[in-house]
C-alpha cells in the first residue's frame, strides 16, 4: 500500500542541493535492445530464431541450442515474483542515497528469470507485470509492477525514479499561443503539475484562447520569445531554478521546399524559431535542470520536444520545415547525452501533420493537438524517450525500419 506523496515544501535555503548521481551505466552492445524497448515503452526480450527460446540477460548465443540468431521480439509481460531482497546499505552511491531499495527475481511465463527493480506493491509468490524502464543513467532496467492497479500506484518511490511524472512538478510550456501549447498546459495541470509557466512571445499580439489560458489556476504566463537569446536568458534568470519539466511546444510550420521559394527569409525564420530557439532554451535552462536532477520530489525530470516525424525522412511538400526538424532531432540527441549525468530525460514526441491551420490543405489523418498533449503526459508518466503519435508517425516509423529508400521515393513522389 503506497502512501500518496505530498506536495513538497519550499526548500530550506540553508541546505545544499543534492547533486545527481548515476546508477551503474555500463551495458553491452546487445543489451541496448532493452534500451530501445524501454525508450518506446515496449517489453522485448531476445528470442532464438532457430528454437524460439526467450532468454535474458542479453546474450550472443541461444542458451538452449547455441544458435547465434537471437532477435529482440515483443514478449509476454507476465511473470511471478520468486523472491525479493531489500538492500539497506548498498555499496553504490546512487542506491545508498535511496536505500532501502527493493529488487527481486521474477520467473517469466515465457521462460527466463529476470533480476528486477520492484514496485512496493509487488509481493513474493504473486503474479507481476514487467516493463523495461530507463533509469537515471538513461540505461534500461527491468521493473516489476503489481498485476492489478493499486491505490496511489504512480507515487511509488522506486517507480518515480524511473519516470518524470508531472505530479507536483513545475513545468514550462514554451509557446502558449499554439493550440498544442494550450492543450499541453491543460493536460499537464490535470496530471497534477503544481504550476505551469506558459511562454508567450510578442505579448502585444492578442491570440485565440488567451482568456481561457489566463483563467486556469496554477498557470502563469511569462514573456518568452525563444527566437531571442536574451528573452530566453531573462526568463531562465527568473525561473530557471524551478523548471522541473520543460515542454518545447514551438510551432513554426511553413509549406515549401527549395526551388519554389524565393529567397531565404522563410528558411531563416524556420531555423530561428525551431533550431536556434531550441539552442537558446537548452543553453539557458539545461544547466540548472542537469544540476537539479536529484532535487527531491520535484527534481528536474524531463525535457520534451515535439518533432515532426518528417525529421526522420524529408517530406518535400514541407521540405525546408522537415530539414529544420531534422536539425532539432539531431540536437535532441546531443541534449540527451548532456542531460544524462543529471538523470534528466529528453523525450521526443514525433507526430504526423497536426490538425492545425498550417496543415489545412493536407488530407487526413491528422493528429489532434489534444492527442499530442495526452501523449506528452503519458510519456512523462511512463518514463518514455521516443513516442510516435498518430497513424502517420507510426506508419513512417515502420516504413523507415523496412526500407528507408522506399520512404524517400514515396514522400517525394
Amino acid at each position, binding site marked *: 500500500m503506497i502512501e500518496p506523496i505530498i506536495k513538497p515544501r519550499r526548500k530550506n535555503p540553508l541546505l545544499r542541493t543534492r547533486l545527481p548521481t548515476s546508477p551503474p551505466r555500463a551495458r553491452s552492445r546487445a543489451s541496448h535492445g532493452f534500451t530501445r524497448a524501454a525508450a518506446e515503452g515496449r517489453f522485448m526480450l531476445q528470442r532464438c530464431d532457430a528454437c524460439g527460446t526467450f532468454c535474458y540477460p542479453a546474450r550472443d548465443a541461444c542458451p538452449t541450442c547455441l544458435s547465434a540468431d537471437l532477435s529482440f521480439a515483443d514478449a509476454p509481460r507476465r511473470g511471478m515474483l520468486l523472491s525479493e531482497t531489500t538492500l539497506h546499505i548498498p555499496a553504490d552511491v546512487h542506491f545508498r542515497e535511496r536505500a532501502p531499495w527493493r529488487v527481486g527475481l521474477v520467473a517469466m511465463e515465457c521462460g527466463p528469470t529476470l533480476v528486477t527493480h520492484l514496485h512496493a506493491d509487488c509481493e513474493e509468490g504473486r503474479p507481476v507485470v514487467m516493463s523495461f524502464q530507463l533509469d537515471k543513467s538513461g540505461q534500461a532496467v527491468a521493473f516489476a509492477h503489481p498485476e492489478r492497479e493499486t491505490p496511489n500506484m504512480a507515487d511509488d518511490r522506486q517507480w518515480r525514479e524511473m519516470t518524470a511524472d508531472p505530479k507536483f512538478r513545475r513545468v514550462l510550456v514554451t509557446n502558449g499561443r499554439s493550440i498544442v501549447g494550450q492543450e499541453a498546459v491543460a493536460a499537464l495541470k490535470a496530471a497534477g503539475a503544481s504550476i505551469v509557466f506558459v511562454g508567450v512571445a*510578442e*505579448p*502585444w*499580439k*492578442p491570440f485565440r484562447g488567451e482568456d481561457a489560458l489566463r483563467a486556469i489556476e496554477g498557470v502563469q504566463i511569462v*514573456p518568452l*520569445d525563444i*527566437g*531571442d*537569446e*536574451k*528573452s530566453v536568458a531573462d526568463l531562465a534568470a527568473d525561473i530557471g531554478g524551478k523548471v522541473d519539466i520543460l515542454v518545447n511546444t514551438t510551432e513554426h510550420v511553413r509549406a515549401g521546399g527549395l526551388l519554389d521559394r524565393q*529567397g531565404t*527569409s*522563410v528558411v*531563416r*525564420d524556420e531555423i530561428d524559431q525551431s533550431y536556434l530557439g531550441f539552442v537558446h532554451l537548452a543553453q539557458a535552462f539545461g544547466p540548472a535542470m542537469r544540476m537539479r536532477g536529484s532535487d527531491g520530489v520535484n527534481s528536474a525530470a524531463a525535457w520534451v520536444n515535439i518533432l515532426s516525424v518528417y525529421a526522420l525522412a524529408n517530406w518535400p511538400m514541407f521540405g525546408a520545415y522537415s530539414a529544420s526538424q531534422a536539425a532539432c532531432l539531431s540536437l535532441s540527441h546531443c541534449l540527451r547525452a548532456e542531460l544524462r549525468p543529471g538523470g534528466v530525460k529528453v523525450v521526443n514526441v514525433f507526430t504526423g501533420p497536426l490538425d492545425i491551420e498550417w496543415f489545412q490543405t493536407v488530407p487526413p489523418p491528422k493528429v489532434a493537438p489534444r492527442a499530442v498533449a495526452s501523449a506528452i503526459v503519458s510519456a512523462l508518466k511512463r518514463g518514455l524517450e521516443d513516442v510516435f503519435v498518430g497513424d502517420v508517425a507510426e506508419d513512417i516509423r515502420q516504413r523507415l525500419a523496412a526500407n528507408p529508400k522506399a520512404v524517400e521515393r514515396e514522400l517525394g513522389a
Partner: protein
Amino acid sequence: MDSNGLMQFAGAVASGAVRVVDLTFTLSPDFPVIVLPPEFGQAAPVRIQQISRYDASGPAWYWNNLTFGEHTGTHFDAPIHWFTGKDLPNNAVDTLPVRDMIAPACVIDCSAQAAKDADFLLTIPVIEAWEKSNGRIPERHWVLLRTDWSKKGWRDYANLKDDGAHTPGPDAAVMRWLVEERGVIGFGTETIGTDAGQAGHLDPPYPAHHFLHGGGRYGLQCLCNLDQLPPTGAVIVAAPLKIQNGSGSPLRVLALVPGQG
C-alpha cells in the same frame, strides 16, 4: 552661413540654448513591429546576440551581433520602399541627398482626437485649422502627427483586433495635398507606420506610403517625445543608415528646438 554662425550654433547646443530632443525609441527585441498576414515575408525582429562580455569569448571587450529588418524600431522609409517610388532617382537610403536629412518640422497636435478615436484620420480641414494659428506649412518641411500614441503600453500601441490594427493616421486626400500643395519633405508619426492601422481599406490603400514615396518624399515612424516639440521651429535630424539600395532603416531621430537659454 559663415563659420562663425556654425560655431554659434554649436555653442548654443552645448549651452542648452538649442535643446536636443530624442525622438527615438530604444531599438530592442520586444518593441512591436509591423504585422503582415503570415503568408507574406515578415520583417525580421530585432535580435541582439552577445559575442562577448569580458568573458572567455573576449576577455577585455563587450560587443553584440545585431539582426533586424529595415523597418523595425524608430525608422525611416525611403521612396523605394513603395511601388510608387520604385523608379525615382536617388530613391534609396544610400543615394538620397544628405541635405534632406536635416529639415524643419511642423507638429500637428491631434492627441485629443486620437485619445477619443483610435481610428482617427488626419484630414485637410484639420491642417487648415492648424495653419490658421501657425501659418502655412512651408515647403521642404516635415509634417509630424502628434497623437501621444508613443505613451501607450505595447499592446494598446499595436492595438491589434481581429480585423487588423486600429491606430491613427492620415486620410488619402491630406497625403496627396501635403505632397502636391505643401511640398512637404516627409511625414512622421508615433505609430508603427506612417499610415493608419486600417489604411489598407482607404483609396488608394496606404495613402501615406503611396503619395509620399510616389512624390520622392520620406516617412518617419515610431517617433516619441513629439509632445516636447513646438508647433513650428524645430529642426529634425534624421540620417538613416547607408544601406546599399536600402528601403529604410532604424535610425536616431533628433529634434533641435529653441531652448530657454
